[in-house]
């Protein structure tokens, strides 16, 4: 009974029908302490209480310089040309979207006057349009007013293929129209339950029509504003040296009160992650360093008596081992891993399940990721509403052996299992990256104990992730038996994340291996569930469909999830950054401040 009541109370706090204090008082009445009550709320998906005023500075400026260190420096400052998060992070200092994702994966209005909802008329029940109201009085850095025309132009600019914008697909299948000077309406071709993609987050930044109008299409690269951005953001552009330095200064006309806190901002690039951590945590030369892909042990050592700390943000990034369902060693019509073949060994579910039992996630976490990882059996790890509770991972060599024995894989003379003359041998590839090679070693060791021979292969990241059709070592060609890498989740919605594995997305020679279904797994139920979810406007049913998809991936062992990865940054002890696992590091840069 308590459980049920608790749940409904958490639900009430979530949508604001009960306040947090009342909740804590109710729990105190049954003998639970306040911290415990808070934790129960957190587990229930309600963020830990933010302090009464989460942004204490009471005036604009006065925070001195903010020094950021990105070990890969931004190389360009047009958000729609950004190839990596580094470029998005750099552009975001100057440009802004309508809304950003906050720490909990909720929308936080930036240039929008309010977040569209059914209640305020911004959303329609059929899910085919969104109406955004733009905050009045916002000015570009050059003094011109921000209007609906700028948004309509941004859409037209990006969706022109000749512009060669990276964000083109974010703005595909929709039209954007001006309702009045401060209102735009996005019309979708199909019902779109996840409507907050265009003009939200990294690729949502709006660019000024008056500076880019002459540079739409094939002349896009000649725009002077590509290198000297004029945005609406909290900082005004001062200087840019690609790969090295970005400098900005406080925007005195910024549209949010008392923001920004810092007088100047600089983003330095170059070097490596470990020395970046050192410059923040040990010597304090910089305030914040991005993406500490460093073993936890090293960070712990640096943090002892240092001037900084590490901070973590939870998103949905998943490190996994993918299984190839086709045969990588047989060539059919000039292509290996062809859909016309079946993997001789891995098409046996028992083998796939045995492999899943042989991944010692706890050791991987202990030896490599530490605080930056969470063990998981799910491919889909967030937001909370979409996380399956039906899966459970286990590490057991004995169970794996039993499973293989039962399926008829008997140990051969050399200790390697075989069945019908086929040996249990795999090639396991991944990109060159310290933690990944260590994970490979841990998995290989367990496999050996179970009588599986694993050959390790590592490919340079720029080759592994390239779309070079001529190269056999790309992840999408998948010319090995199993492969490991990470797929990030760039927004708190599973649609794009899960759509990859439908049968229409299979990577093959015909589509130049551009299909995203690289395991080449085909399942009609999965296709149907994804199709239904894409137009399902009831959030509960939609979540249930995605959970079902996740469970299918697990039961069929298409993926062996290794680690739910958190983002890790290094931060000076006095700095209060606002970093969301659902967005880029600088997406809420206007709220950063320095505490006492």
């Amino acid at each position: 009974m308590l459980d049920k009541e608790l749940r409904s109370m958490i639900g009430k706090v979530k949508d604001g029908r009960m306040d947090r204090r009342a909740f804590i008082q109710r729990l105190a009445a049954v003998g639970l302490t306040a911290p415990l009550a808070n934790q129960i709320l957190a587990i229930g998906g309600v963020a830990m209480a933010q302090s009464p005023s989460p942004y204490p500075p009471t005036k604009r400026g006065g925070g001195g310089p903010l020094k950021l260190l990105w070990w890969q420096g931004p190389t360009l400052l047009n958000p729609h040309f950004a190839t990596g998060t580094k470029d998005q992070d750099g552009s975001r200092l100057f440009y802004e979207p309508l809304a950003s994702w906050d720490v909990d994966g909720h929308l936080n209005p930036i240039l929008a006057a309010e977040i569209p909802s059914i209640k305020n008329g911004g959303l329609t029940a059929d899910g085919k349009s969104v109406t955004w109201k733009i905050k009045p009085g916002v000015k570009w850095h050059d003094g011109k007013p921000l209007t609906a025309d700028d948004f309509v132009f941004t859409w037209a600019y990006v969706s022109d293929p000749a512009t060669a914008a990276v964000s083109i697909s974010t703005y595909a299948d929709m039209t954007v129209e001006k309702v009045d000077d401060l209102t735009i309406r996005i019309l979708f071709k199909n019902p779109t339950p996840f409507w907050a993609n265009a003009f939200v987050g990294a690729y949502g930044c709006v660019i000024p029509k008056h500076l880019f109008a002459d540079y739409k299409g094939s002349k896009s690269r000649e725009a002077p504003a590509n290198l000297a951005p004029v945005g609406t953001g909290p900082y005004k552009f001062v200087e840019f040296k690609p790969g090295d330095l970005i400098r900005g200064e406080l925007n005195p006309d910024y549209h949010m009160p008392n923001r920004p806190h810092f007088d100047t901002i600089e983003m330095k690039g170059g070097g490596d992650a470990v020395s970046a951590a050192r410059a923040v945590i040990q010597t304090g030369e910089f305030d914040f360093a991005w993406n500490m892909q460093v073993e936890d042990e090293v960070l712990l050592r640096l943090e002892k008596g240092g001037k900084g700390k590490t901070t973590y943000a939870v998103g949905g990034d998943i490190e996994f081992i993918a299984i190839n369902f086709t045969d990588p060693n047989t060539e059919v019509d000039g292509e290996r891993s062809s859909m016309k073949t079946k993997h001789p060994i891995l098409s046996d579910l028992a083998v796939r399940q045995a492999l899943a039992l042989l991944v010692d996630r706890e050791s991987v976490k202990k030896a490599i990721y530490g605080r930056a990882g969470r063990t998981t059996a799910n491919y889909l790890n967030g937001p909370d509403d979409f996380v399956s509770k039906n899966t459970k991972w286990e590490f057991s060599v004995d169970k794996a052996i039993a499973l293989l024995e039962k399926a008829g894989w008997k140990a051969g003379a050399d200790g390697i299992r075989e069945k019908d003359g086929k040996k249990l041998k795999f090639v396991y590839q991944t990109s060159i990256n310290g933690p990944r090679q260590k994970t490979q070693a841990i998995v290989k060791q367990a496999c050996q104990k179970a009588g599986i021979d694993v050959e390790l292969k590592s490919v340079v990241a720029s080759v592994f992730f390239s779309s070079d059709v001529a190269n056999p070592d790309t992840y999408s060609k998948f010319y090995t038996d199993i492969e490991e890498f990470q797929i990030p989740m760039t927004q708190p919605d599973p649609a794009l994340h899960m759509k990859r594995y439908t049968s229409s997305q299979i990577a093959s020679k015909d589509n130049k291996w551009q299909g995203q279904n690289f395991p080449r797994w085909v399942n009609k139920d999965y296709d149907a569930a994804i199709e239904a979810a894409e137009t399902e406007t009831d959030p509960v049913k939609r979540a249930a469909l995605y959970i079902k998809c996740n469970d299918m991936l697990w039961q069929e062992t298409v993926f062996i999830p290794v680690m739910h990865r958190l983002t890790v940054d290094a931060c000076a002890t006095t700095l209060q950054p606002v970093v969301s696992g659902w967005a880029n590091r600088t997406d809420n840069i206007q709220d950063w401040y320095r505490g006492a």
Partner: protein
Amino acid sequence: MSQYVLRRLLIAIPSLLGISAVLFFVLALAPGDPFSELATNPNVPPEVQAALRARFGLDDPIYLRYLHWLSAMAHGDWGFSFVSRMDVDRLILQRLPATLYVIGSAQVLALLIAIPVGVYAATKPYSLFDQIANTLAFIGFSLPTFFTGLLFILIFSVTLDWLPFVYTTDIKATGIRWVLEMIRQAIMPVAVLGLFQAASMTRFVRSAMLDVIRLDYVTTARAKGLGQAKVIVKHVMRNAMIPVVTLIALQMPAVFGGAIVTEQIFRIPGIGSLLISSILSNDTPVVMAVTFVFACLVVLFNLIADVLYGWLDPRISLR
């Protein structure tokens, strides 16, 4: 003389063409893609990545791409960076000052140490001074710069907290304070590189001096009653410096080319770090431009070294 220079310059043209062709084809054969970072971004379907490749001509046949590049280069168009979407010459010019300052200072430091130490060690071979200089030189060039660099950072930045280890190009100070800050932040990289260069150069100067110092004309000069200083500087050094000049001349392109490892460790925004980041991201136009400029400098400084020979030793005639 001028005829000689002209002829050498003309010979340089085919060799530079050859160099550029080899560079281009090797780079084109190297696997990878400047847009690989997009691969796992769920917001960017692979078609977009492929469309970008096609737009930037990466799917054209290699020989066509080379001819495009060559004709553009002939018109003074250095190309356009895929990664930064800006002109390559601007990118390079932005990086040049830091490289010239840091690597140039390191070379000067190396010369200031190597020549006096080498000369003095050669005048007193196998003395205590010579032994110590030799030992230090051996240690110096046995330790790679990535090791000494990290060691310096640990000692002077982390432990003692005297010097910054991140190089900044925009020091917020003016006048004398700006100069002092510039010197302060360059101390570690210049020392790391300079000492490394000085070590090998000292050995070289010493052996070049020893070769000459035993010659009969030196004994003659001494017999004439000339002072030790005059004999060493005027008679021995002038001849001993000929091979040293070649060495220095051949190292000059490196001053422009930057030092990849040192620049990376200290985050110096120089040509070396530009080159390595461009190679890692398969930004072919930038890699081509940097390596091609480098090739031109090597050819040019070889020529300068040859001309200097004639001046140092009039017996060498240039035809």
